[in-house]
């Protein structure tokens, strides 16, 4: 065979290697997208559980106690997360719109909530406070969220 010439077997081999590599890249991108999606779900869940536990803690400590909370997710412009305390169902409800998709999750609180409150978290504004206030007339502790 002449030197410095591309042989047909070599071309075959290159095509086969390319096919394998392309498939690997395709599989890897798919897996990565899925892993990232699941990572976001897990972060939202952990955040909701964290808010639930902190709310219980704030309620137990009582009047005047405030805790600063920060969203563990980096939001881009146009994305938002709403954290709400529902007085009817005694639940923490987190709804979010991230990357064009909507998410929602809830956690049942073991303490009563007397007042609905919610905070809207956006990019550059991802900090909020959970605070307790003693309501003298009603004789009860209100836990609320405030920006």
């Amino acid at each position, binding site marked *: 065979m002449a030197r410095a010439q591309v042989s047909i077997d070599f071309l075959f081999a290159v095509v086969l290697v390319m096919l394998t590599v392309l498939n690997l890249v395709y599989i890897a991108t798919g897996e990565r997208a*899925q892993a990232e999606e699941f990572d976001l*779900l897990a972060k939202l869940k952990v955040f909701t559980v964290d808010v639930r536990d902190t709310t219980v803690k704030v309620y137990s400590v009582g009047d005047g106690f405030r805790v600063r909370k920060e969203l563990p997710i980096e939001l881009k412009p146009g994305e938002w997360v709403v954290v709400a305390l529902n007085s009817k169902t005694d639940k923490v409800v987190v709804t979010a719109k991230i990357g064009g*998709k909507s*998410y*929602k*999750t*809830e956690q*049942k609180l073991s303490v009563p909530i007397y007042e609905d409150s919610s905070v809207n978290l956006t990019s550059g504004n991802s900090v909020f406070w959970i605070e307790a206030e003693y309501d003298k007339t009603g004789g009860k502790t209100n836990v609320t969220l405030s920006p």
Partner: protein
Amino acid sequence: MSPSRRRGQTALEALFILGIILTGVVLIVPPYLDSSEETSIVVQVRNAASDACAYLNTGVKMDDWLHEPLNEILEASNYSSSNFVLEGISTSQSGNVVTVRVRIKSQKSSKFWENSGQQLDSIENGVKEYIIRYVLKANPSASRSGNAILFGRKRAVINVEVSGEGS
């Protein structure tokens, strides 16, 4: 024959060898693709089923076309972990029909699910619908007919069995 006279010419024997290689490819590739298609169906169903379990156990609702069939189950379990575990997958093939059987177990009792308004049957249907959508999304060439997925001539039927604790 000197090298200078052979340049730029395809030898007859090279064409012969190429012909033999191509015939070999034509003979070997279709059955190989056939069996690899079945394997890929099973792998995808398995991925879809374990994904469904992970989604339900995480307890965060996503409002999109793919996850919509599972959302009712998620709401019934109050967004808490239902501890769904993929117990096993088995397949059987007859002719062009591949039947995949998926077994999923929930650590919550079947009583819990009955009280929540989601019978085990409707969980089965939800998970099945999710698996079908997942496979269809991963294979743009596949199409749907009723509760089966069509891959060219092949037909994949998915059966989901969900059992609760103590049932």
